[in-house]
C-alpha cells in the first residue's frame, strides 16, 4: 500500500473520529440542556438503613414523588416541599395507601416523618437536617423504590 493511500486513510479516519466525537458530545449537551429540572433516585435500602441526605433547591417549590417497588409492600405518595435554608423543611401531600391521608407540616428536627412510600407505612421520607431529608427503611427486609424531585 502506497504512502499516499495510507495518508488518505489516516486523514479520513481522523475526520471520522473528530466528526463522531463532536456529534456525540453536542447531541448529549443539547439533551442535557433541554431536559427539565427533574431528578430520579433509585434506592435499595437494607433493613433499618437510610439513604444519603437529599438537599432540595431552596425557596422554590419542589414536587417529591415516591414509589415503593418491593413486592408485597408497593406504594406511592407525593408531597410539595419548601426548603427554607438553615431553618426548616415545609411540606404538604398525600401518604401512600393503605389509608392514604394528608401529610403536612414543617420541621428541622432529625427523624420527623414526612411521607410514607410503601403500603405498610414502614418506609418513609424523614427530615435529616434543616436543609435535607432522607429515605428511611424501617422494614425488617431490604426495600427498593424510586423517588423523583421536580423543581
Amino acid at each position, binding site marked *: 500500500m502506497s504512502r*499516499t493511500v495510507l*495518508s*488518505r486513510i489516516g*486523514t*479520513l479516519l481522523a*475526520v471520522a473520529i*473528530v*466528526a463522531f*466525537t*463532536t456529534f456525540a*458530545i*453536542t447531541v*448529549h*449537551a*443539547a*439533551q*442535557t*440542556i433541554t*431536559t*427539565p*429540572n*427533574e*431528578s*430520579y*433516585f*433509585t*434506592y*435499595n*435500602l437494607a433493613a433499618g438503613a*437510610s*439513604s*444519603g*441526605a*437529599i*438537599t*432540595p*433547591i431552596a425557596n422554590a417549590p419542589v414536587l417529591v414523588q415516591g414509589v415503593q417497588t418491593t413486592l408485597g409492600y408497593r406504594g406511592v405518595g407525593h408531597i410539595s416541599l419548601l426548603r427554607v435554608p438553615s431553618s426548616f423543611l415545609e411540606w404538604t401531600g398525600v401518604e401512600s395507601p393503605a389509608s392514604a391521608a394528608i401529610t403536612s407540616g414543617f420541621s428541622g428536627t432529625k427523624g420527623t416523618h414526612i411521607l410514607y412510600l410503601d403500603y405498610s407505612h414502614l418506609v418513609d421520607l424523614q427530615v435529616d437536617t434543616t436543609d*435535607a431529608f432522607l*429515605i428511611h427503611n424501617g422494614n425488617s427486609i431490604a426495600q427498593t423504590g424510586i423517588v*423523583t*424531585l421536580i*423543581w
Partner: protein
Amino acid sequence: MASRKQSLLSVSVRRNRWRSQGLPLLLWILFASGLVIESLAPRLKIDHRAFVMPETLTATSAPIHPDAIVDRERKMQVAASLLILGSAVGLAFFYQRKIMAALMPDKFSHPPSL
C-alpha cells in the same frame, strides 16, 4: 531600508509559522480540553426526560444536592460542546485541502492543467 525589509520578513515568517504550527496545535488543545471537561462531568443518564442519579449516591450517607449536580452537568456539557464544536470547525477549515484531497483524490492529486 534593508533592516526594515528584514524585520518585515521576520514578522511574515513568524506569522506563517503560527499559521502552520501554532494554530493547529491550539485547535487540538481546545479539542482535547473539551474531551477532558466532558470526561470530568457527572455524566448523568437521562431517562424519561429526567436526570437519573446513580444508585451509589443514595447507597452512601453522603449528602446529595440534585440541583447542584444537574447544574454542574449542564455547565460542563455546554463548555465541552462549545470547545469541541468550535475546535472541530476550526480544524475542518485548517485541514480543508487535506480533507478534500482525501475525500476526492482524483480531483486534488494533480494540479489543474493550463
